[in-house]
């Protein structure tokens, strides 16, 4: 973007945005302050037939003695207060997000979450200065019911299943045992610290310490997502830390409720502890069960939505949200329920819904989770300024220190146990990243906020906020340079290679087979059994129509083809070819039979030139639409088997029909199934044509008897009728030649008739 006025265009939007935000906020506060005035005029307006002495007080209407004039313009803020405030907050969040990307320098060094917290601090400070009191705080209900679910659903729906299931054991060990270790270590040590005289913490008993430990120990999925998304770390580490942050919710919920209950009673007995363990299993497995049920329901519903495509995305969202809420009703783990619902629902729903709905689901989820995340961090900043703080040096410092120490110890200890059972062991580098990635976030804050009000609560909140700030700022900012310094493996760009998919499937079957030969039922054996069960019974119920029997390889291949075709159609207006295009086409691969080749005479150079010129002239007009599957530069050998061609054509047409259902490009470019029959050659089809290739294709003609056809768009059909006539002569000549020398086969003759 070579901007002639770079400085101005870079800064003015940012300044304007900031200005606008401050203005909006001040306006908001003033509006709430002037509530009384507004309601006063409101009343007068609602009851116009009032006694006359009220009229002088009405400072909006032009009042005569007895009649109030009809208010042309009235101010009625109360009416829209709540939605107005919500919208302004969201707008503020989004404008901030926009602003950060206009200044690339900062956003490269500092992760977005930090910037957003800073903004929240500024906003909170402004509000406090203007208003004095009554600044908004991150309400726990708002957080848990509205802000958290979209993020978790987004994470769960797009969870990469293969790495997750392969590492499930490790993830569970980290999530459950790691969190338990953290809770008891931090809680116990903090209690010991509180016993130190002179710290002023004598009134904090063991149970409260353990409660505090349970709040602060859990790794937070929102913070992890926010930071890890930007550093593009390899799949294994990403899924380990992220999976842990999701699955430790069950542990956190149980321990939190347990200690909260008991801190009122003051003591815990052994039976209570046992009940706690049972509760853990109930909470986690119950949550998963609830999610599972709603997931199956959602998948089943999507089977019947083929006639009402517009509401398909809503089913996905609502069933998932209901799963979350239902789990929360019973105090089960809502996060695990949401994840289970998304994971179960996804393969079946994706097979059923249209492509547009799929895109809608994807983008809405990303949008909501993005907004939620932004709002969470801003509110964190605002709440920091607002909340009553109780700063105790010993407590806070020790909390931060212990969090780090316990995390490191926990990871190292657990990894040494886990590595005995893992085949691909975790190296020291991996362990470091896992330990360093244990970020705390808004869940800890909200849980702390739910405690009953007391001096202890404020102290806890202060400590929690300090830990959150520390992890997000210090660890969040330094993790990227550390990753680069340690040369940790980054995420590899997957281009969706059909070869990789074929071999992944092949490997699955191979390893299952080898396990069977070896005679023990391992990982692959059970996975294979599950797949077969899925294919045989479940898919029939949950997937509509013939998609239910489609093997995975074929659906992958179709998806890939669709993606490529769409890409080409969308880039059709520019003549830029995708960079991976090579000049290799099917003719390079199809084995040609030497005898036939020898039988073809080579056409004279001048003739070639003529043909080439003619084709190029015709092609000029059709440059736009002559892009299609460049991969399938299929030149059908006319002597090839008829049967397979028919099938191929059928598949192509089917593909084209499918494409035309969802393409969003304008109609004149849309309707082309990339392959169309052209009038005079019903049996042969051509596929690609590129300007680059047309001269070559002209050269090709004499050498093989295959005939190339042009791609057509429906509205060009009249033009195409003209073209074949022009070409027909040339090709007739060639074909006459070739026919004279070899057996043309039945297809050629059809052309003549």
């Amino acid at each position, binding site marked *: 973007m070579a901007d002639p006025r770079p400085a101005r265009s870079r800064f003015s939007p940012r300044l304007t945005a900031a200005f606008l935000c401050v203005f909006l906020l001040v306006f908001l506060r003033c509006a709430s302050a002037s509530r009384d005035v507004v309601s006063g005029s409101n009343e007068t307006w609602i009851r116009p037939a009032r006694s006359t002495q009220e009229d002088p007080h009405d400072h909006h209407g032009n009042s005569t003695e007895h009649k109030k004039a009809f208010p042309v313009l009235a101010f009625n803020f109360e009416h829209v207060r709540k939605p107005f405030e919500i919208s302004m907050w969201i707008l503020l969040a989004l404008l901030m997000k926009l602003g950060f990307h206009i200044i690339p320098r900062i956003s490269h060094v500092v992760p977005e979450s930090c910037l957003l917290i800073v903004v929240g601090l500024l906003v909170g400070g402004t509000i406090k200065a203007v208003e004095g009191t009554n600044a908004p705080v991150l309400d726990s209900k708002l957080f848990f019911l509205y802000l958290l679910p979209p993020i978790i659903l987004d994470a769960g729906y797009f969870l990469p299943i293969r790495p997750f299931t392969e590492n499930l054991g490790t993830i569970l060990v980290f999530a459950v045992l790691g969190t338990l270790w953290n809770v008891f270590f931090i809680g116990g040590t903090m209690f010991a610290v509180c016993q130190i005289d002179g710290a002023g913490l004598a009134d904090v008993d063991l149970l409260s310490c353990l409660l505090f430990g349970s709040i602060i120990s859990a790794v937070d999925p929102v913070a992890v997502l926010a930071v890890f998304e930007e550093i593009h770390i390899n799949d294994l580490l990403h899924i380990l830390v992220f999976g842990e942050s999701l699955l430790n919710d069950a542990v956190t919920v149980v321990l939190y409720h347990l200690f909260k209950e008991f801190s009122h009673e003051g003591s815990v007995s052994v039976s209570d502890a046992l009940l706690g363990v049972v509760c853990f299993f109930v909470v986690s497995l119950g949550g998963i069960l609830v999610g599972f049920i709603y997931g199956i329901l959602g998948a089943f519903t999507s089977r019947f939505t083929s006639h009402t495509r517009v509401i398909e995305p809503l089913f996905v969202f609502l069933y998932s949200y209901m799963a979350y809420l239902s789990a929360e009703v019973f105090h089960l783990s809502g996060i695990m329920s949401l994840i289970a619902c998304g994971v179960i629902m996804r393969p079946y729903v994706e097979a059923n819904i249209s492509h547009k709905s799929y895109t809608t689901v994807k983008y809405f989820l990303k949008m909501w989770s993005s907004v939620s995340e932004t709002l969470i961090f801003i509110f964190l900043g605002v709440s920091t300024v607002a909340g009553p703080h109780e700063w105790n040096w010993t407590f806070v410092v020790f909390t931060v220190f212990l969090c780090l120490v316990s995390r490191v110890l926990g990871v190292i200890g657990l990894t040494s146990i886990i*590595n005995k059972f893992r*085949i*691909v*062991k975790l*190296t020291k580098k991996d362990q470091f990243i896992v330990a360093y990635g244990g970020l705390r976030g808004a869940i800890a804050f909200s849980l702390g906020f739910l405690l009953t009000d007391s001096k202890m609560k404020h102290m806890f909140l202060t400590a929690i906020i300090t830990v959150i700030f520390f992890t997000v700022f210090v660890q969040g900012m330094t993790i990227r340079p550390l990753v680069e310094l340690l040369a940790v493996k980054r995420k590899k760009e*997957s281009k969706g*290679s*059909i*070869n*990789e998919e*074929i*071999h*992944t499937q*092949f*490997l699955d*079957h*191979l*390893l299952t*087979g*080898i396990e*069977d*030969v*070896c*005679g*023990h039922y*391992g*990982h*692959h*054996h059970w996975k294979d059994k599950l797949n*077969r069960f899925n294919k045989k019974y479940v898919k029939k119920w949950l997937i509509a129509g013939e998609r239910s*029997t*489609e*093997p995975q*390889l*074929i659906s992958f*291949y179709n998806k890939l*083809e669709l993606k490529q075709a769409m890409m080409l159609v969308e880039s059709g207006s520019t003549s830029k070819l995708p960079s*991976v*295009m*090579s*000049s*290799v*086409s*099917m*003719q*390079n*691969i*199809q*084995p040609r039979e030497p005898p036939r080749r020898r039988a073809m005479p080579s056409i004279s150079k001048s003739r070639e030139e003529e043909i080439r010129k003619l084709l190029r002239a015709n092609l000029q007009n059709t440059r736009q639409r002559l892009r299609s599957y460049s*991969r*399938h530069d*299929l030149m059908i050998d006319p002597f090839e088997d008829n049967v*397979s061609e028919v*099938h*191929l054509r059928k*598949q192509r047409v089917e593909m084209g029909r499918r494409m035309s259902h969802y393409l969003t490009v304008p109609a004149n470019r849309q309707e082309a199934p990339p392959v169309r029959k052209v009038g005079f050659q019903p049996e042969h089809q051509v596929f690609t044509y590129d300007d680059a290739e047309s001269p*070559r*294709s002209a*050269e090709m003609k004499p*050498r093989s008897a295959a005939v190339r056809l042009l791609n057509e768009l429906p509205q060009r059909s009249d033009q195409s009728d003209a073209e074949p006539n022009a070409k027909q002569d040339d090709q007739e000549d060639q074909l006459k030649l070739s026919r004279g020398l070899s057996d043309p086969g039945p297809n050629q003759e059809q052309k003549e008739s």
Partner: protein
Amino acid sequence: MGAKQTRSAQKYQDLTDKTGFSPEQIKNLHKRFQHLSDNEETISRENLEKIPALANNPIRKQIIDAFFDKRNQHQNEVGAFQEIGFEQFLMVMSHFRPPTLKTTEEEREAMRKEKLRFLFNMHDTDNDGTITLEEYRKVVEELLSKSGAIGLEAAKAIADAAMLEVASTNVPHMAPDDFYEGITFEHFEQILKGLEMESRMHIRFLDVDTMTMRCGKSKS
């Protein structure tokens, strides 16, 4: 009895050196071998075909053939055995060992190459050093063989597309007359670079004897 012990220990030691398995793993695999061969010295194709769990596997034939393929014995021979002994059985199994924490970078590279070579041999049935289009088509057809008619139609298209991809990645600028003979081993390595074969192609070999734990299911 003492002599027999040392003899088998010696034999196991040889095998440990050659294949890299630990003695416990070799013992377990030997037990399995004897079970499969009905306590004879060698197993034939029929023995392996009798394994019931393999019946559902679409690439069953390729797997069984791989055991009898001389190329997988690392002795530069070609052709196929009719029957194999325990040592050859173990050699084939050794292709599926995972890397350990102590494996160096070069050893990993060598391991990856070896595993890819195994896969390549499975595809290249006529042993001409390349996987031709026909052979690749066969591979995809076998993979989809349990899926009925849909599978067979699409198999050809998928194999063609895959071949095209290999060609375009490895030899991006071919003149229209050039004929891409087939996937050579180098190209095969290149195209599957992203899969990190040394971490994926392995199974867990047990150090514990599981035969006695499944006494009810010894037929598997």
